């Protein structure tokens, strides 16, 4: 196998430069834990600027070019025999967003916003009904009596908890009646179920966040500190000390 060519910049490998930049920016962002400072501001502005610029390129490459430019100017690249002029309609709607730069015509930008909101709301309603109503209802309809259906006592108890939890939580989110009497009791039980679920979710997510922190610390230690900071200094001291 031929060895990959090492790209250098002023005699330094770009890989090494990349590791140094990543480590310095990581430490700059972490410096916010102490207080807001100029180093953090520098990292913040680099981050925001690069991500905004990168976003523009991504939108062009993954949306504008394949869905608008290519169907019009290079139809063969998207499997078309002839240019598809229908894409001019969404293209024109997109261009209307630029009307915001002209005070007299900025009302035109409401059209694409209205179009997007209407389109996605229409698409979201059936999906929500399916995912949050029907499938949730189907998943909650479970047998409760172990003698009648082939389930264990613990499964029946678990099913009972599920049904009671759902009904009481629904009670908590009932807004148009005072939460007194039976509804008040149900909503109190409902909030208890909610807090148990949130507690479990909190612990689970914190574990994931800790693993992200560990990943970043591992990068700093193994990829940057060890090979590029401690290693050379240690070697220098050994050399000077004659070891």
């Amino acid at each position: 196998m031929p060895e990959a060519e090492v790209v250098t910049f002023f005699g330094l490998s770009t890989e090494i430069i990349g590791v140094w930049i990543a480590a310095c920016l990581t430490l700059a962002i972490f410096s916010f834990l102490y207080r807001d400072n100029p180093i953090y501001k520098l990292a913040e502005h680099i981050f925001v600027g690069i991500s905004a610029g990168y976003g523009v390129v991504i939108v062009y490459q993954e949306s504008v070019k394949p869905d608008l430019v290519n169907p019009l100017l290079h139809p063969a690249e998207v499997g078309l025999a002839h240019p598809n002029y229908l894409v001019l309609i969404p293209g024109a709607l997109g261009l209307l967003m630029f009307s915001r730069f002209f005070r007299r015509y900025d009302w035109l930008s409401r059209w694409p916003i209205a179009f997007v909101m209407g389109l996605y709301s229409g698409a979201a309603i059936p999906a929500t009904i399916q995912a949050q109503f029907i499938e949730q209802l189907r998943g909650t309809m479970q047998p409760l009596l172990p003698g009648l259906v082939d389930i264990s006592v613990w499964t029946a108890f678990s099913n009972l908890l599920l049904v009671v939890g759902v009904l009481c939580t629904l009670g908590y989110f009932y807004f148009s009646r005072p939460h007194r009497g039976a509804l008040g009791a149900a909503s109190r039980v409902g909030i208890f179920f909610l807090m148990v679920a949130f507690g479990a979710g909190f612990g689970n997510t914190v574990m994931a966040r800790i693993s992200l922190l560990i990943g970043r610390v591992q990068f700093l230690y193994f990829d940057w500190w060890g090979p590029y900071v401690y290693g050379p200094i240690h070697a220098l001291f050994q050399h000077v000390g004659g070891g």
Partner: protein
Amino acid sequence: MIVCGMDRSTVAGGALAPRTHHYARAEGSLRHGQRFRLCTALAALAICASAWAAPPGAPTQVKAVDNPEDDRGTQMIVSWEAPTKRQRPWGTYWAGYQVFYAPVGRERRPGPLAPPESTEVVAACFKPWPWRPYNTQVAVVYLPTPALAVTDASGAIAPSGAHFVFSDTIGPVQPLALWYNAKRTNVLVMMLLYSAIVLITIHYATRRAEDMYIRPIAGLEAVNDAIGRATEMGKPILYISGLSGISDVATIAAMLILGHLARRTARYETQIIVPCQDPLVMAAEREIVRDAYLEAGKPQAFRPEDIYYVTDSQFGYVAAVDGVMMRERPAACFYMGYFYAEALILAETGNAAGAIQIAGTDADTQLPFFITACDYTLMGEELYAASAYLSRQPLLVAQLRGQDLGKILIAAVLLVGTAITTLATFWPEVAQRFLDWFNV
């Protein structure tokens, strides 16, 4: 082999004759027998050679039809019959089939692979719209060594030396989208039922909606306190409407709350800062705040530069908003809408900046973080109810009442379904039919 069987039976038939002849004739017949065997062997060889030289088998009876199960019009079902075994090219192994298809007039492209025993495959077409007619071919894949055919990223057969034998081109066949997906009738019924409840309630309840009760929601009671605090301290309010797009229900709810908030801040001329992660949301929110200031009779106090786009990168946005919090030191922070992993970072920074914080989201994974780090949190439906609660507009309040009736419907269906599932032993068919209705 068939050829060998013919050879053996012919020899056996010849062996019966010599018993009835004398020696000389027998010697002569022996020579004749040798010639006969030689001819038979040559004939067998010729048959074998012709078999080897026969064109290798291609799939027959290839058919391509629109997949009736696929309502989007993006799939075809391609079926075929296998070639006979003796049509395999010499020294190769039958590794499976590959479907090739392309829109009419375009070069064929490799499609799905199928194992040797299969006779049908579902082929995904390239784009659902416009629904173009496709030409289809099925190829038998022969490999030099026994192995199953596999493809690389481009869809081509990965091992080298593969031998393809193509069927005739079939088509054109046009996969079509269906106007109605019968499998999702239950979704339609539920949607119509729920919508009907809400609409009827709005129709009948709007007139007396102003007197309608809405239970106190602590997070919304605190909104006015937060605005008052910011006004008294002379500090701005920071409003973040989540990281989701303009079509998200939570973002729409967040924009409605922003409208209410902006009317109050306009009245007291309190600065409101709205950094946005989505350009469309930014455009809509700028309109909302401008309208609110106009409505409050303070158009000169509206500062369009306070509602600005940052970046659509999640953590780039968070870094910028954290910086704003520490520099501007807002008196109140509002986090309304859909949030992801940034929820805790934002809420902790707002806490460090000393702001009163009110959050509202339907992201159940982020709610625990807001509950722990913010002063008040609107959970799920409370966020949707906020606009009705704050504005007390008859239409919105009646809509909230309709949603509550919808919840009663859900609870009723759940209780009936649980009872039917529990008593399924007595009426198994009814129970199964009822539960099947909820399968999507």
